[in-house]
């Protein structure tokens, strides 16, 4: 094997691996299906070329192109990365907003085809079909680019750049920010409801992946010194996707392995296929495409997780002990809350108030533990313990809210006030509009008419993630765990103020965010212990039973430090004894200042824990009162309690 061949192989491997890492970050980690990925590499290649080339007038109209600045190394490479990142911004219109993932993917694919056609056919832009050639190599004036030493140095730089990119994407992925990206990948609606700004996350991923792709393009043209539309057909994206899927989506090492196996491997293996004049000239390259297609299909069939699957991230944490850590609650709230709970809700198991800080995890210790562990934002909560529910401040309000689904009025003018520190129940027959109302309160669905007020402010126009950041947190009726995150990660994904949960924080490295992370993990571990799921902390949430997933969702909502919790049938499928325990926990949290609005069909739960209870039917509020008052109302009984 001569050194030219080896250098060629190494540079292509490094460039393809970089591109695959960028795609792995976008697709494998963040779930952004960028079928236009090759555009970004192309942009980097062209940028580096026109930054390095002299003006086109200098070469006697041999080729024509924009720019031609003749700038020294490393400006072309930097420019390639910058432009690769910047051109991602317009694509935000495709991946952001309300465009579904598959539509965005098609939009990006079409854009890649359009841009390739443009570059091919409009010569003044980038020399059209023939492409750019004779691109000056880095530092060509000082060294001899033909020498073996130069070639090896360029190879070393390319491999080093690839290693740097690997470290960068790993740092992003393994941070709390990376966890938010993976949460978005698994279920974006839920991530939104937990305060993740999907538009910002996706845009950032396009920019980061675009910059990586741009840099890879810049490095590649420095070696091959030409760049033409034929080098970046939209189908090249398919090759990169094949590499990422075969290597293992979500695992960056898998992306590197895939890059070596698919683009590099295929190119090399086909060199050894004997050719003869009797074969059509394009047969081998065409068969290469067939082989790549078959490879993708067979991997999706036999081993969809790839050669190196995404690995499980096990986070170990000692549960936070309430006794060891001062509760952030107001000093007077604990005792008061305890008294209020005991008097408002007679519970046979209530321990004497003195045992409030018992580590045994009985119901009595919950209010303290809840304040410390459940993380309710109690600092700005006035003492609510001694007020009757009806006198308390209205924290969440729907005013004449309407929601139509294609002519059907699911919610037809509902006004509802939820008061601070109450457990308000919401009952009604199936199809009464309860879940729709909850979705509008949380911002998951826009209202067709009417107003949503939260803490005295009109939040009707606020998107779900902004409401979540204000402490208005919802859960979902149907299973909504992040399947490929562990139970512990599901809980941590909801933590609102982790300094590692931003690109900047992620780049600052584990030392910067470890403190926040460990504190959150300790809180999560304590919650898991209280709900009896500590043995499943490191299981994938998608592997749990239906009832356990409901509990993960409730715990995750508590980790989000809610002021108001909107629960959609939290007890459905939960074992009765556990349902009752959850009810007890919620009562204790409410005594500490949390407000809960809960849809539930289990009337025993309503009887025992909720006051007031609102009854809905056919999109309107029928009545409001205690459960026993509602039982005496013939219209409620008619609509709901008897069939």
């Amino acid at each position, binding site marked *: 094997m001569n050194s030219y061949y080896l250098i060629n192989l190494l540079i292509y491997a490094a460039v393809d691996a970089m591109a695959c890492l960028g795609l792995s970050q976008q697709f494998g980690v963040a779930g952004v299906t960028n079928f236009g990925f090759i555009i970004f590499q192309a942009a980097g290649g062209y940028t580096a070329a026109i930054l390095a080339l002299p003006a086109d007038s200098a070469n006697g109209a041999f080729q024509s192109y924009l720019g031609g600045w003749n700038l020294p190394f490393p400006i072309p490479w930097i420019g390639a990365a910058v432009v690769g990142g910047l051109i991602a911004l317009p694509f935000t219109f495709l991946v952001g907003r309300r465009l579904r993932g598959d539509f965005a993917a098609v939009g990006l694919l079409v854009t890649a085809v359009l841009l390739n056609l443009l570059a091919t056919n409009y010569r003044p832009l980038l020399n059209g079909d023939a492409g750019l050639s004779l691109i000056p190599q880095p530092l060509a004036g000082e060294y001899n680019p033909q020498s073996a030493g130069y070639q090896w140095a360029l190879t070393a730089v390319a491999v080093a750049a690839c290693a740097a990119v690997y470290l960068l994407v790993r740092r992003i992925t393994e941070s709390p920010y990376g966890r938010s990206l993976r949460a978005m990948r698994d279920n974006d609606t839920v991530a939104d409801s937990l305060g993740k700004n999907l538009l910002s996350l996706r845009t950032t991923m396009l920019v980061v992946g675009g910059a990586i792709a741009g840099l890879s393009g810049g490095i590649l043209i420095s070696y091959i010194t030409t760049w033409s539309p034929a080098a970046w057909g939209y189908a090249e994206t398919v090759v990169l996707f094949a590499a990422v899927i075969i290597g293992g989506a979500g695992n960056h090492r898998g992306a590197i392995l895939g890059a070596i196996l698919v683009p590099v491997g295929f190119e090399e293996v086909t060199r050894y296929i004997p050719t003869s004049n009797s074969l059509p000239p394009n047969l081998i390259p065409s068969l290469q495409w067939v082989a790549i297609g078959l490879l993708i299909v067979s991997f999706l069939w036999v081993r969809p997780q790839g050669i190196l699957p995404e690995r499980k991230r096990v986070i170990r944490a000692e549960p936070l002990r309430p006794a060891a850590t001062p509760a952030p609650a107001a000093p007077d709230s604990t005792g008061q809350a305890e008294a209020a709970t005991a008097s408002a809700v007679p519970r046979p198991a209530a321990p004497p108030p003195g045992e409030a800080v018992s580590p045994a995890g009985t119901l009595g210790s919950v209010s303290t533990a809840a304040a410390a562990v459940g993380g309710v934002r109690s600092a700005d909560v006035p003492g609510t313990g001694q007020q009757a529910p009806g006198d308390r401040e209205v924290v969440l309000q729907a005013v004449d809210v309407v929601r139509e*689904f*294609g002519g*059907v009025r*699911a919610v037809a003018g509902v006004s509802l006030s939820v008061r601070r520190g109450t457990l308000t129940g919401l*009952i*009604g*027959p*199936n*199809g*009464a*509009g*309860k*879940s*729709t109302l909850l979705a509008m309160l949380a911002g998951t669905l826009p209202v067709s008419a009417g107003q949503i007020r939260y803490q005295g402010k009109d939040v009707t126009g606020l998107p779900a993630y902004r409401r979540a950041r204000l402490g208005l947190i919802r859960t979902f*009726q*149907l*299973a909504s765990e992040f399947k490929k995150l562990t139970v512990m990660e599901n809980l941590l994904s909801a933590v609102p103020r982790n300094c590692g949960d931003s690109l900047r924080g992620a780049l600052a490295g584990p030392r910067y965010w470890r403190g926040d992370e460990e504190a959150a993990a300790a809180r999560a571990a304590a919650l898991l212990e209280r709900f009896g799921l500590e043995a*499943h902390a490191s299981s994938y949430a998608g*592997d*749990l*039973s*239906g*009832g*356990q997933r409901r*509990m993960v969702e409730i715990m995750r909502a508590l980790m989000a430090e809610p002021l108001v919790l909107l629960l*959609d*049938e939290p007890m*459905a*499928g*939960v*074992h*009765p*004894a*556990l*349902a*009752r325990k959850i009810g007890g926990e919620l009562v204790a949290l409410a005594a500490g200042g949390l407000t809960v609005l809960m849809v539930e*069909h*289990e*009337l*025993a*739960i309503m009887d*025992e824990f909720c006051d007031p209870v609102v009854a809905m039917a056919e999109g309107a509020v029928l009545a409001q009162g205690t459960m026993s008052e509602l039982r005496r109302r013939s219209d409620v009984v008619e609509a*709901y*309690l*008897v*069939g």
Partner: protein
Amino acid sequence: MSGEHTGRGVPLRATGVTAGYGGDPVIRNVTVRAEPGEIVSLVGANGSGKSTLLKSLVGVVRVTAGTVVVGEADVTRKAPEEVARAGVGYVPQVDDVFAPLTVRENLEMGGYLLPSRQVRDRIDEVATVFPRLAAMLSRAAGKLSGGERKMLAMGRVLMLQPAVFLLDEPTANLAPAIARTLLEDNVRRLAASGASVLIVEQRARAVLAISDRTYVLAGGEVRMEGTPAELAASPAFIESFLGGTVSR
């Protein structure tokens, strides 16, 4: 079910079933049976393996040991569609209706194995079981409320008049009145028409009231078995299931 069940009495017998998702088995050596006309319930804590057991019976989860026999047919490790053809109807816990299709189209999908001229009649019959669905046949299933979706998932399985009925928490998202009708009326009539019914429920009292026999699962194994009366006499059972709170 408006009495029109074909009356093929077919028992379901699962013997020594061990199954899981790769790794450690989730259920171990479980033996359950349901005879024609019988309502058999499965109760147990979250994660005890109830849903996994149902999934292993219908071929969704791989059985590693034991046998599953429906009537004369051994359906162990058969594909889900073959189990369906053997006469087993299964309503999963997470009811996946076809969201973009209308309610009628969903029901038509449920009647896929029927001769086309019977499909319309069956839809009418299912609609009499769930009158609420009758009123919204042309609505997209994705726009139904949670409880309505559950009814649709049930109705879709009803289309084939299965001889063996496996129900995974059918009342989980249903309003109390409908939940009661479903258990006390629909499920009972299903059994009365000759079907064998195996039902997983968290509403222990309600399901015990209609059960002929009950299995209690814990840690992936059958821990107790008996008639509701026998179980109601067991202190351990009362402690864990009928703790006096969540009734109805």
